[in-house]
């Protein structure tokens, strides 16, 4: 079935990113307007706006309000819904509701979402298909006692993870047995709060692993390919800060091995659409399956840059029931791409969010630079959504060239307004171990001690600028002539009444 209209149940850069493809494919795009950012850019890019701003429910945020979105989609007779990432992207109920209402959900089946979303089920599947796993609990851990038993079996350190989780919340590393009780209650509480589900499971904690994920594409006819890996090890508290493709850690043999494992996992749930299989890679090159993300990822552009494949377009074609136009042997990884996440965060004080208005933003336009963003001059960073301002994706023939280009692009990426992670990006690029490709998930905590880059004369120039501005303002005040004569020649009409 050909999709002619598409509702994007998302906002910001990903909404704009999806619109770019729908425009190319001649699909009419619909977006949702909220009271939280009634002037956001993505609204202007879309063909149609569905207004949620008039009536807002304080209990359910707009992009999580399944029934309201479904109702609106039906009212406007849209053919399909793309959930983007976050919000309802991995909500099996939403996918099922779409199926029930005969709206095409751009993504996998609700069953695949459910099974991969539930970590214990996903792990069971992986075990059945012989995919390597970290030792740990087979399912949710019942209580602290059970956690202790399993932990003693697999050995410390262990990590407790929310079964329904993601994005680092509800995760607790336990170093020693004496901490397990406390950590268990912390993790369950956090999981209950964040995901409405207190289930946690336990697994062996790999101390300094690499985080490597494989991009999967599958159609509804049983064909699955992988589009290579993404290196996502540079993280802060499990939040990715930059991604690259390919990974400097993999050779072709490893890539093949892990890619096949990823495809197998996907096939185990008859996966179709775009998806991502995450692995941990240990120092000894052993890898273990972590989880599968059943959605488009924030970092998908690096894969697009090196493969030349428009992932959103493929997702839509797959949803229409089309067969994949390529097989594994057709996929070629061309050069190197790095994505720098530019967040409105204060790297000088522990990446705390930095709200405010983006007064001005500008970036270098170039062939090997791609910028995905949902903001422009005057956009407001609100506390309601995440702090990502933009993604800067840079492509080069080699990793070395990609880094060199990145250096230039970051230097030319200017934002006036909130504090951003640009200074952090520069600091990463200056790090020799990063440049060598020699890093893992402990990069921030162990290797990069100062999270922002200072040029030697930064402070001097800043000091100069402060004094210059101060002197200039005094000078300007003093130099502007005051016209007192105007103030004295007052019409008698007025003057006469000045006194009572």
């Amino acid at each position, binding site marked *: 079935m050909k999709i002619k209209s598409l509702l994007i149940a998302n906002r910001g850069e990903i909404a704009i990113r999806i619109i770019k493809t729908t425009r190319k494919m001649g699909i009419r795009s619909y977006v949702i307007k909220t009271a939280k950012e009634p002037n956001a850019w993505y609204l202007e890019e879309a063909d149609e706006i569905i207004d949620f701003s008039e009536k807002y429910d304080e209990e359910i945020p707009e992009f999580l309000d399944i029934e309201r979105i479904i109702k609106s989609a039906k009212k406007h007779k849209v053919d399909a819904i793309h959930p983007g990432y976050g919000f309802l992207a991995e909500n099996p109920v939403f996918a099922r509701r779409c199926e029930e209402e005969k709206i095409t959900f751009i993504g996998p089946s609700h069953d695949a979402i459910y099974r991969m979303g539930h970590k214990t089920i996903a792990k069971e599947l992986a075990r059945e298909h012989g995919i390597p796993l970290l030792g740990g609990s087979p399912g949710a851990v019942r209580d602290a006692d059970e956690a202790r038993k399993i932990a003693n079996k697999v050995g410390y350190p262990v990590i407790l993870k929310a079964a329904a989780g993601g994005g680092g919340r509800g995760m607790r590393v336990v170093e020693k047995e004496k901490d397990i009780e406390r950590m268990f209650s912390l993790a369950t509480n956090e999981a209950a709060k964040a995901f409405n589900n207190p289930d946690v499971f336990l697994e062996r904690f790999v101390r300094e692993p690499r985080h490597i994920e494989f991009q999967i594409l599958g159609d509804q006819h049983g064909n699955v390919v992988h589009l290579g890996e993404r290196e996502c090890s540079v993280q802060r508290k499990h939040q990715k800060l930059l991604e690259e493709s390919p990974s400097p850690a993999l050779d072709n043999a490893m890539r093949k091995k892990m890619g096949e494992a990823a495809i197998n996992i996907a096939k185990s749930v008859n996966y179709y659409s775009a998806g991502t299989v995450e692995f941990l890679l240990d120092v000894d090159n052993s890898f273990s399956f972590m989880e599968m993300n059943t959605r488009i990822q924030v970092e998908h552009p690096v894969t697009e840059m090196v493969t030349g494949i428009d992932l959103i377009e493929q997702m839509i074609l797959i949803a229409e029931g089309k067969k994949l136009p390529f097989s594994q042997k057709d996929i070629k990884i061309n050069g190197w791409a790095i994505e720098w996440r530019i967040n409105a965060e204060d790297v000088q004080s522990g990446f705390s969010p930095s709200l405010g208005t983006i007064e001005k933003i500008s970036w270098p336009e170039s062939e090997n630079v791609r910028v995905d963003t949902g903001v422009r001059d005057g956009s407001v960073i609100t506390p309601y959504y995440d702090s990502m301002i933009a993604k800067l994706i840079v492509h080069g023939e080699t990793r070395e060239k990609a880094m060199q280009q990145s250096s230039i692009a970051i230097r030319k990426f200017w934002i006036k307004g909130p504090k951003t992670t640009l200074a952090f990006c520069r600091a990463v690029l200056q790090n020799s171990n990063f440049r060598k490709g020699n890093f893992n998930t402990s990069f921030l905590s162990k290797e990069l001690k100062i999270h922002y880059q200072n040029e030697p004369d930064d402070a001097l120039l*800043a000091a100069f600028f402060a004094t210059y501005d101060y*002197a200039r303002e005094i000078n300007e005040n003093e130099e502007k002539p005051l016209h007192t004569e105007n103030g004295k020649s007052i019409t008698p009409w007025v003057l006469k009444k000045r006194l009572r």
Partner: protein
Amino acid sequence: MARAAKKKQSTKLIALSSTNKAYEFKKPLEKRIKYQGKEVDIKLHEDPKGFSYIVWKNKKYLLDVIEKKQNRYTIMVNGVWHSFTVETPVSLKRKRYLEQQVDASAAVSIEAPMPGKIVDILVEVGGEVKEGEPIIILEAMKMQNEITSHITGIVQSISVKKGESVMKDDVLIEIKKG
């Protein structure tokens, strides 16, 4: 009036950083600075989009005044923020003198300006706060009010919890100047 107004001459200015480092500039308006013993011209530009930048050693340095209040400045260079106070030689001397007089260890308490309910606490003990930075959201009369810090320093203690009701002048947070 016969006598013409003479403008105030700009004099030597000193930017004093938050880490107490002093940068001296003889005549900042003339855009010349002393660098490694030599007088160097500063090339200050504004691009069409309104960004200010300095070309320094063949590199562009993006600069912006993030905040200014009287003589207190926060300047951004290449995405990193630097805080200064701009002083004259006289005011710098005064500042140094006054610094000796005040008890540096004293903590300043931030009190509730009105009765209400604590909706959110935006800082943590040990965290750094800047003057004017919101630290607590207090709901009163169905409105959310930002309570801001009036000094820059480190949070020493937080005396309230989320959801707690407070009376006017209750101590919310103590901040150690720094």
